[in-house]
């Protein structure tokens, strides 16, 4: 266990409260007041068929608009604007599906790491199941993203099956592939940290490409780095933050900013010129 040393800055203060911030966002996505604003996309991965979903899932909208051969101006515009501001900070701090995986990761089971190249599967899912398959084969194809999505199976199909069962109606099960992926996902989240986000999430794939240019980013100050490699141990996703602070696989949990020399910080392009000069040694 790596000892976390708090530097006392704003980032350090909020890292300890990340789960509470994720829970607060969950309240927004689950629509406690019965709001179903499905004309609007949210920037997170949350199935719109969930009985409590407040907003539309951007991935579901992208895929279905591809199947309709209509350009999704609202979904693409939203993802561009949010990605430009936050990059994968959304994954680490706001996504309800990521929050679920973070909660199950708290269960004390042996955890296994994944090879770094598995992160590229997310782009295969994005290009294949979200864009190409819907466009060329339509939404009836068995690999259409919503037909295999574990978020849909967990957040929409499961509550529907429970309500059908309680009402004494015939229970409609999801297709075999979707059910298999759900079971694999439910097993994997206890043994791998954020398996969906790291290997398959198409929304994470979109936000990750903004990491290097987003308004909020991970700033590495080479002058302060003592090469202690504490950040390697703090990172639960196998990234070496001092080499690639804005790595495609980073979900911006910001745990690495707890390194004692304070060489890693949440940076912003809005920082004033004076601060920029002070950090001129930073990358």
């Amino acid at each position, binding site marked *: 266990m790596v000892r976390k040393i708090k530097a006392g800055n704003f980032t350090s203060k909020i890292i300890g409260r990340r789960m509470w911030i994720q829970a607060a966002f969950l309240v927004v996505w689950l629509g406690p007041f019965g709001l179903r604003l499905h*004309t609007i996309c949210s920037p997170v991965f949350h199935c719109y068929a969930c009985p409590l979903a407040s907003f539309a899932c951007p991935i*579901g909208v992208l895929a279905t608009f591809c199947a309709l051969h209509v350009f999704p*101006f*609202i979904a693409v515009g939203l993802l561009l*604007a949010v*990605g*430009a501001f936050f990059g994968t900070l959304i994954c680490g701090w706001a996504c309800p599906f990521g929050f679920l995986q973070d909660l199950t990761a708290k269960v004390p089971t042996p955890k296994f790491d994944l090879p770094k190249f598995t992160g590229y599967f997310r782009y295969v899912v994005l290009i294949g199941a979200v864009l190409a398959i819907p466009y060329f084969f339509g939404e009836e194809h068995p690999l259409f993203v919503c037909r295999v999505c574990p978020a849909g199976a967990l957040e929409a199909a499961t509550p529907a099956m429970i309500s059908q069962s309680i009402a004494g109606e015939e229970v409609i099960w999801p297709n075999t592939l979707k059910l298999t992926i759900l079971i694999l996902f439910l097993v994997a989240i206890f043994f791998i940290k954020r398996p969906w986000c790291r290997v398959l999430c198409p929304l994470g794939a979109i936000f990750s490409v903004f990491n290097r240019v987003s308004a909020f980013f991970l700033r590495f100050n080479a002058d302060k780095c003592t090469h202690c490699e504490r950040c390697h141990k703090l990172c639960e996703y196998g990234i070496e933050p001092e080499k690639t602070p804005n790595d495609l696989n980073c979900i911006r949990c910001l745990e690495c900013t707890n390194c004692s020399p304070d060489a890693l910080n949440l940076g912003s392009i809005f920082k004033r010129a004076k601060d920029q000069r002070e950090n001129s040694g930073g990358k």
Partner: protein
Amino acid sequence: MINNNTKILIFGVLVLLGAALLAYGALFHSNNVLPQQGEDSTAVAKSEPALIKEVTVGGVTRAESGKIKQTYTGKAPAACAT
């Protein structure tokens, strides 16, 4: 390595582009949607937010003719069937 001024420029372009697409989609973009029965019927223009709402309940599909067609008549389904 991308310096801060380049980042600000890229950020500005992305945000402006995103806002322009959002505004166009929300305010001006619409598509014709055919009713479930009969492809010769009069199509109804639906704005993009309305089309997103239809998508969330599995209310539209692409007909063989390439036109967008509603999957139900009367009351909309409660949720997407996929």
